[in-house]
């Protein structure tokens, strides 16, 4: 038996980042247990929202979310879905996506936000940097390694983009983990076993996998997923319907994008309301003497908007079973996670698709980050099982003669995996060859990337033996290299994906950009903390004025002292100091806040 790999250090290195479309979470190991990174209000749910001002100010998380209706043009929601979106996806959202996009650039969405055009990767990187620094503040140590969740439908190049964004954000080591695989790990960690279907369904994506635990390996039997079928789609439908009603009553709106954002935020809440109570009312209050607009939405409406989501879910379930060569009856458990699986109609639909009732996960919203943390522990050698045997999410193929497709690697092949193909030239002394690479994630092949080979030694047509190696790593990222084998000469190669970064752009970004951007990321976090700090200050000042009658002298003095301390450090550079002072201030004010709440409740009750 070989020696076991030695442990690198006693400190856990990897932190778990569940980068969600709507909400993100960060978890880290604390002793045998775990802890979440929370904001100053103690909330572990970090909205995946970022706000950029023209002057270079950046807000992220709750601070950005809370201001989105004020600055819709400057505030981007559902950041992650920008990676799989194109101009054709976001433009139809009209007033709900009030950011001009550059439709000349087809390989990655370029969004004008904060009066400056930025590629999607940079926006994701800014947000990831915010998450990373938040983790550093909570852990009080540098965080440079992370396990980051990813939707199953991300192509090898989407995964690449996400990984480069993480590197730009200061994560030197990144391991991507498919969301349903993360949930499966959380499910296993909770002591379950057997063969399970796992679905995660959130604001942006539906991701699913069939898994089983076998001899300490987490075997992935098949995966499938879909983009543009999440909670965002329901919110947009609901908000679109209501905005239509508003326009009917008030005519053309002057500040449409502000109202649209207000309505979108309200729609999200109404969706939850319908799930809980069967109905919810959306209303736009009286503004500038114009009449209020009200509309009640019910389960029936929700059901109608879920229709296309259900159709897509059926397809995904069918594909999972077919790919794994299994029937419904072969499964032991169904595990559901993500906010959308709380909608009864969708939950029941998935249960019907798999012929099972959904089992328990400790918390369906925390499962993904806890599973990512289980993986982080494994990477840190704090636990030795399960080792995951993950699979390729889409078949890769090349166009053969007569337009038929010849697969290089099939969907479901265990990764890391690869294949070599041999090509030759058609022309005398030909030095360049282009190969079109295709992918099949569902039932149809679609172009994925163009491979441009150069520096082929000039030879007679058909003589060069060009060996192209396709290698998919454990994150599902594709690497392509080429060699002319008769002369053993490595060839020039440029990969140009339909969506994502070209191979030279990846190299250039990794070499130079992170250092340039580091200062900007730092400022983003400082701004966020300052904004929260100011908020704490203002709200407590207001509270001590309003509740002058119930505040004790000692309390007043302590709050004033802590407030002064916070004010002093607020504009400084030391983030730890800001965080500590803000926490101390809240601590000092907690008894007062509790009495204030009690007093308010009594007023309401009488």
């Amino acid at each position, binding site marked *: 038996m*070989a*020696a*076991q*790999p030695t442990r*690198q250090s006693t400190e856990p*290195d*990897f932190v778990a980042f569940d980068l969600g479309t709507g909400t993100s979470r960060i978890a880290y190991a604390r002793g045998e247990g775990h802890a979440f990174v929370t904001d100053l209000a103690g909330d572990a749910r970090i909205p995946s929202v970022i706000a950029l001002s023209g002057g270079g100010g950046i807000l992220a998380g709750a601070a950005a979310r809370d201001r989105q209706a004020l600055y819709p043009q400057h505030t981007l929601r559902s950041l992650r879905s920008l990676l799989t979106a194109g101009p054709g996806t976001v433009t139809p959202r009209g007033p709900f996506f009030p950011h001009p996009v550059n439709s000349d650039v087809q390989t990655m969405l370029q969004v004008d936000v904060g009066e400056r055009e930025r590629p999607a990767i940079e926006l994701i990187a800014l947000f990831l940097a915010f998450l990373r620094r938040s983790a550093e503040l909570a852990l009080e140590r540098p965080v440079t*390694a992370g396990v980051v969740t990813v939707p199953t439908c991300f192509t090898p190049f989407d995964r690449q983009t996400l990984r480069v964004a993480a590197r730009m954000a200061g994560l030197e*080591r990144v*391991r991507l983990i498919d969301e349903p695989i993360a949930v499966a790990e959380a499910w296993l960690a909770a002591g379950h076993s057997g063969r399970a279907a796992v679905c995660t369904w959130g604001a942006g994506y539906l991701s699913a996998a069939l898994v089983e635990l076998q*001899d*300490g*390996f987490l075997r992935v039997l098949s995966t499938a997923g879909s983009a543009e079928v999440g909670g965002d789609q329901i919110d947009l439908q609901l908000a679109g319907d209501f905005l239509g009603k508003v326009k009917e009553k008030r005519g053309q709106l002057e500040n449409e994008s502000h109202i649209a954002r207000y309505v979108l935020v309200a729609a999200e809440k109404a969706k939850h309301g319908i799930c809980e109570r069967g109905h919810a009312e959306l209303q736009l209050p009286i503004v500038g003497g114009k009449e209020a607009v009200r509309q009640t939405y019910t389960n029936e409406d929700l059901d109608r908007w879920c229709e296309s989501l259900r159709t897509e879910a059926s397809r995904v379930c069918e594909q999972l079973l077919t790919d794994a*060569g299994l*029937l419904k*009856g072969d499964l032991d458990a169904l595990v559901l996670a993500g906010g959308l699986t709380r909608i009864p109609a969708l939950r029941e639909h998935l249960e*019907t698709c798999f*012929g099972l009732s959904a089992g328990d996960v400790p918390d369906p919203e925390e499962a993904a980050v806890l599973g990512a943390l289980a*993986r982080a522990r*494994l*990477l*840190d*050698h704090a636990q030795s099982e399960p*080792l*995951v*045997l993950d699979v390729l999410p889409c078949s890769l193929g090349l166009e053969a003669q007569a337009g038929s497709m010849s697969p290089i690697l099939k969907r479901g*092949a*265990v*990764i*890391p*995996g*690869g*294949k070599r193909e041999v090509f030759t030239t058609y022309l005398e002394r030909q030095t360049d060859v282009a190969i079109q690479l295709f992918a099949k994630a569902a039932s149809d092949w679609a172009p994925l990337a163009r491979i441009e080979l150069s520096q082929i030694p000039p030879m007679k047509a058909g003589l060069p033996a060009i060996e192209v190696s396709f*290698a*998919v*790593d*454990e994150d599902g990222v594709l690497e392509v290299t080429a060699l002319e084998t008769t002369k053993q000469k490595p060839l020039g190669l440029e990969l140009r994906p339909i969506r994502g970064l070209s191979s030279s752009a990846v190299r250039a970004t990794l070499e130079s950009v992170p250092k340039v951007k580091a200062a900007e990321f730092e400022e983003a976090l400082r701004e966020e903390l300052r904004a929260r700090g100011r908020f704490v200050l203002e709200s407590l000042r207001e509270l001590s004025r309003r509740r002058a009658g119930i505040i004790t002298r000692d309390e007043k003095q302590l709050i004033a002292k802590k407030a002064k301390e916070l004010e002093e450090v607020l504009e400084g550079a030391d983030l730890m100091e800001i965080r500590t002072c803000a926490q101390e201030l809240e601590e000092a004010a907690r008894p007062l806040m509790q009495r204030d709440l009690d007093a308010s409740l009594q007023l309401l009750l009488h």
Partner: protein
Amino acid sequence: MVCGRCGMPQPVEDVGPFAVFGIPPRLTWEAAELHATYQDLARRCHPDLFQAHRDERVLQAARGAMRTLNDAHRALKNRVGRLRYALSASGRFEEPTHTVPEGLQGSAQIIGRVLAAVETAVVQGNREAWEAQQDHLASLEVQTDKAEQESKAALGRLFNEWDDAVASSRGEWPRVSEGWYTQAIRWLGERQYLETLTRRVRTGRQWPGS
């Protein structure tokens, strides 16, 4: 792939799947034998064991070793894969086409009609029409099982001939008769037909949602 002394993954050369598993190129293997070796090697070169390693090259080597292992396992883990590998490593592989096995040639049309009727009934949600076909489907299942058995026996004969050649090849790549290659490709084509058929019959026996 993994150093016996230090436990660190090593760069791997292209040696072919049988050598990765350290076994002669016989075609008759129990899946469990290959599986145990696969798991043993995977436990030592899985890239997740080296993600935290200071030296990025160690992670690269592990990734390469695991890729080689997975590629070899994919080539050998099932009978069809091994047959395909034997053909391509002999330079004799041709893409097979759907072929109706001899035993089913007389009833291919009836099979098509019954399956189409069952699948239409399911799509239309017509349980009565679906039930009306179940007797036909049951007899089809018997025929399919029989064809599967014949196919299995034919593969056994192909494997035996190959393995005999391996035994007498003294470590060289085995040489078999010309007929073996054409029969092997035909067998792959029949396999494709049978796989689709078996799946459709199996699915057709279950009313959706039951």
